[in-house]
């Protein structure tokens, strides 16, 4: 733990990761509606966490630790979008209202809450 370059990289990664997570946290407070807040948390948050984990790998510079760090990042990358997807989808369908500044909503009209079928809008062209 005496290599200054290594320290520099570690510190940079840490600060980057911490900064991203802080931004995610600010975002979740500041942004206007759920979906926009999710843009901040599930991305910035996870990326930030991944960066700090990477800092750990650099810091220890040890095969076992690196392996574990890689695993953590892999797991984050695999699970974070799933969480974002299920929450986003669920809350959208559960009628969590969108921010009034939302410019466009192509999904609502394609969704049939009775049958839970989500149409693509391309079905009619097929029939022609």
């Amino acid at each position, binding site marked *: 733990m005496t290599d200054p370059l290594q320290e520099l990289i570690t510190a940079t990664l840490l600060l980057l990761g911490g900064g*991203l997570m802080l931004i995610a946290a*600010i*975002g979740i407070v500041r942004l206007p509606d759920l*979906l926009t807040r999710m*843009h901040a948390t599930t991305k*910035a948050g996870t990326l930030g966490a991944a960066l700090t984990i990477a800092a750990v790998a650099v810091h220890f510079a040890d095969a076992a630790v690196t392996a574990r760090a890689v*695993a953590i990042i892999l797991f984050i990358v695999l699970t974070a979008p799933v969480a974002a997807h299920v929450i986003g989808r669920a809350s*959208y369908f559960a009628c969590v209202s969108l921010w009034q500044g939302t410019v466009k909503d192509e999904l609502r009209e*394609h969704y049939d809450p009775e049958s839970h079928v989500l*149409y693509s809008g391309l079905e009619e062209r097929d029939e022609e």
Partner: protein
Amino acid sequence: MIPFAWNIVLATVWVVLTANLTLLNALFGFLLGYAALALVQSQLPGLHGYAQRVPRFIGFVLFYIWEMAKANARIAYDVVTPRCDIHPGVVGVPLEACSDGEITVLANLISLTPGTLSLDVSSDRRVLYIHAMYIEDEAAFHEEIKELERRVLKVMRP
């Protein structure tokens, strides 16, 4: 083919996790992975070829990281500056991708990128509905997504 590939991946993960690269350990990891897959194999459809995809894969990763950095910077800027210049909306993007795996990978990559979030896939799997933060120009946004999709499919298809 895919089960086998995934199996190898699992064995590798095992070796990595245990940080113990011996024949015995690799074999053990393979067996464990095999057992785990055997449990779910009835649910997994096949997928073909993956041999020449490594270089494309590396290229893709670099592209993706760059995209991610850009998006993160933009969100960060918007979040920390007092004015919040966002134009969110839900957009349906028609898909080229057709297999479950392709759609999922694409959707997850979209979700992982700040500024876009995959909400759902239409029941006939032809349209991906995306919530996006910045839809100033819808055509440009479509193009961005299509570009990502092309690169993904290039990696994933033989």
